[in-house]
């Protein structure tokens, strides 16, 4: 290869996967007999036509950014927090409980909102703690623990909606009654239906987590645990506590994200209220090789595609399933990951500095990461014996 310019290589390997994934998506659209340009137009109209639509983008961006920021923390510690979807849902459940049973006057709405968000964070943390405890104490791989706990909380929410919390009239599995007005988060303006306080909260969370990861000992410990559990332990890092703290931080953020869905987006609790945003957050973070800096931006792009995709079904020339949005996002992440590999194979780095990414890392940390069915705590115990 004659390409010697590293910046040029980087740009090419950034654009190539984007172009290819778009081309594949376009081919799919053509295959089902539609015009790709119509799709682009519909997505754009659906996301940016007016300020109300833009508000819709922000309403996906808020929860998506929150979970993605949380997932950067768990990925740093080498943990696959697939349970994030369930943690969102648990946050939504806790917030829904508070919204229905903590009845405060309209004048105390601000206090109530803070209470509800704290409850939601607590809910997410409880579910994250379970994943962490199963992984760290009992050796259940966090991927499977997370998947099972996701399913559990979904069943619980359906039970609550069709049982104790069902609407007084016409109880069905569709959702609870709308929450009392003081509990709902207010919108900035009817033309821009977004809760500004939550936008600010996302930014605060971003800055705090950024500082914690890059400026504190805790951030360093997370990295050490994520890269090599054994050597972190030998260096005196409390690995179990560090892993658990990562789960808890992510759980709290996911819980708040979940509460936004029920306290603002829907105004009531519905089955699957988390709406796959947790999984989408995993994609965002994988796409970025767990670099926090670009999370808000990529989350915004993903949120725009998601918002725009609702128009795919309505637009008369299209009538396409909105899952095309997921296909585009999935393709993009897949090709970005694959092309990182292509780049490394074609242009090997002289002094390989293994990045902490789960998608591009040295063999050693990988063995640790995919320690199926055998908890790390367990390994250590076995060694002491």
């Amino acid at each position, binding site marked *: 290869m004659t390409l010697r310019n590293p910046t040029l290589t980087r740009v090419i390997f950034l654009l190539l996967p984007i172009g290819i994934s778009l081309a594949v998506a376009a081919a*799919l659209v053509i295959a*089902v007999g539609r015009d790709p340009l119509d799709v682009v137009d519909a997505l754009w109209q659906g996301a940016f036509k007016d300020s109300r639509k833009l508000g819709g983008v922000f309403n996906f961006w808020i929860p998506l950014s929150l979970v993605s920021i949380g997932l950067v923390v768990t990925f740093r510690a080498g943990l*696959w927090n697939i349970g994030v979807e369930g943690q969102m849902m648990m946050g939504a459940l806790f917030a829904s409980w508070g919204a229905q049973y903590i009845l405060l006057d309209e004048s105390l709405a601000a206090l109530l909102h803070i209470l509800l968000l704290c409850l939601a964070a607590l809910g997410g943390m409880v579910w994250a703690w379970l994943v962490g405890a*199963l992984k760290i*104490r*009992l*050796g*259940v*791989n966090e*991927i*499977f*623990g997370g*998947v*099972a*706990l996701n*399913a*559990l909380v979904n*069943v*619980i929410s*359906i*039970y609550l909606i*069709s*049982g104790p919390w069902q609407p007084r009239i016409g109880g069905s599995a569709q959702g609870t009654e709308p929450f009392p007005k003081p509990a709902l988060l207010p919108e900035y303006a009817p033309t821009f239906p977004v809760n500004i306080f939550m936008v600010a909260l996302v930014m605060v969370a971003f800055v705090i987590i950024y500082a914690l990861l890059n400026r504190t000992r805790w951030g360093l410990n997370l990295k050490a645990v994520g890269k090599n559990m054994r050597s972190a332990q030998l260096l005196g890092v409390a690995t179990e506590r560090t892993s658990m703290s990562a789960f808890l931080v992510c759980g709290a953020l996911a819980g708040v994200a979940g509460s936004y869905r029920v306290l603002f987006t829907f105004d009531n609790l519905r089955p699957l209220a988390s709406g796959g945003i947790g*999984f989408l957050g*995993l*994609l965002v973070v*994988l796409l970025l090789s767990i670099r926090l800096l670009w999370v808000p931006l990529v989350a915004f792009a993903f949120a725009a595609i998601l918002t725009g995709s609702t128009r795919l079904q309505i637009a008369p020339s299209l009538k*396409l*399933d909105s*899952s*095309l*949005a*997921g*296909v585009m996002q*999935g*393709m993009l*992440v*897949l090709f970005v*990951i*694959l092309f*990182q*590999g*292509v780049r*490394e*194979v074609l242009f090997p780095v002289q002094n390989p500095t293994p990045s902490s990414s*789960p*998608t*591009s*890392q040295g*063999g050693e940390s*990988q*063995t640790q*990461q*995919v320690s*199926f*069915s*055998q*908890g790390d*705590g*367990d390994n250590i115990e076995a060694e002491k014996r």
Partner: protein
Amino acid sequence: MNPEFLNTLGSIVGTATPLVIASLGETVTERAGVVNLSLDGSLTLAAVLGFAAAWTAQEAGVLDVPGQIALGIAVAMLVGALIALLIAFSSIKLRRDQVAVGFVLTLLAADLARFLGANFTRIPGPQITRYAIPVLSDLPIIGTILFRQNLLVYASYVLMFAIWYWLFRTGGGLTLRAIGERPEAAYARGARVQRLRYWYTALGGALVGLAGAAYSLNVKPGWSSPPAMQGDGWIALAIVIFGGWHPFRVVLGAYLFAALRAVSSNIQTNGLFLFGQEISFPFVLLNTLPWLLMIVTLLVVSGGLTERLLQYMPRAVQRRLRAFLRSDPPKALGTRFELE
């Protein structure tokens, strides 16, 4: 024995079959040291494309019914194999993490299935029919349970024994286990580690695809959104761990899960009676049972808790019980093999 009870057992064997085939496929893949995490997505995509192929052939009238079924199965197996190969390729050639690529493919394949399946929602298509094996189906008890099924179910029996025989009774199986446990040693003894990993990953993926076809052409005929088999891929992955990567135990696990599901769905439709009294209980919560069982079985086989409980047992029992309960993954599972 009560014939109705036997029929129920028979239907459990029937509905368990996709889980059995998918977990057996994943067992083969993981024995070779590769994790195909995409099961939940690849099952769905294979199911919808298999159904779409069979249905299209039916509408075009180019094949007879067995031909349509065979085409559907072939397409589904191809889809499963291709997804699996992509994971193997990204790990072996591009040095990507198998779990990351597998997870992305899980979501991508599921969304692709919804997108491509939109036009095939709730339409009737060809289905695999029952075929009672002449002499065997007349056997008392097991005849009804095992031998009044369809060909895919019989295929799953054959697969179980074939995979067991290959793994533990042949030289090729020894190599297969070696490349999943100690690829360096296997390489030193002349095994072509990478090439074999491609083969076995593709084979396992093809079986996952077959399981997808078993859903859409038999157990949950047709296609609907959200897909009827959602979540089963994850259960199959957990069953492989529960089964300790041993075909017989894996199949046992799949039947256990299917039985639990049958019981809970039966209670949800018919209610629960104990000593003639109807028990009232929010039956929706029974849907948690498969997932609770998943956590509990992983807890038991994964060490931590079991080890602690074993400490209180007498020495003589300890060892046997540990061998019975614990299951350790192939040592090189999820790792890359590279010659330095």
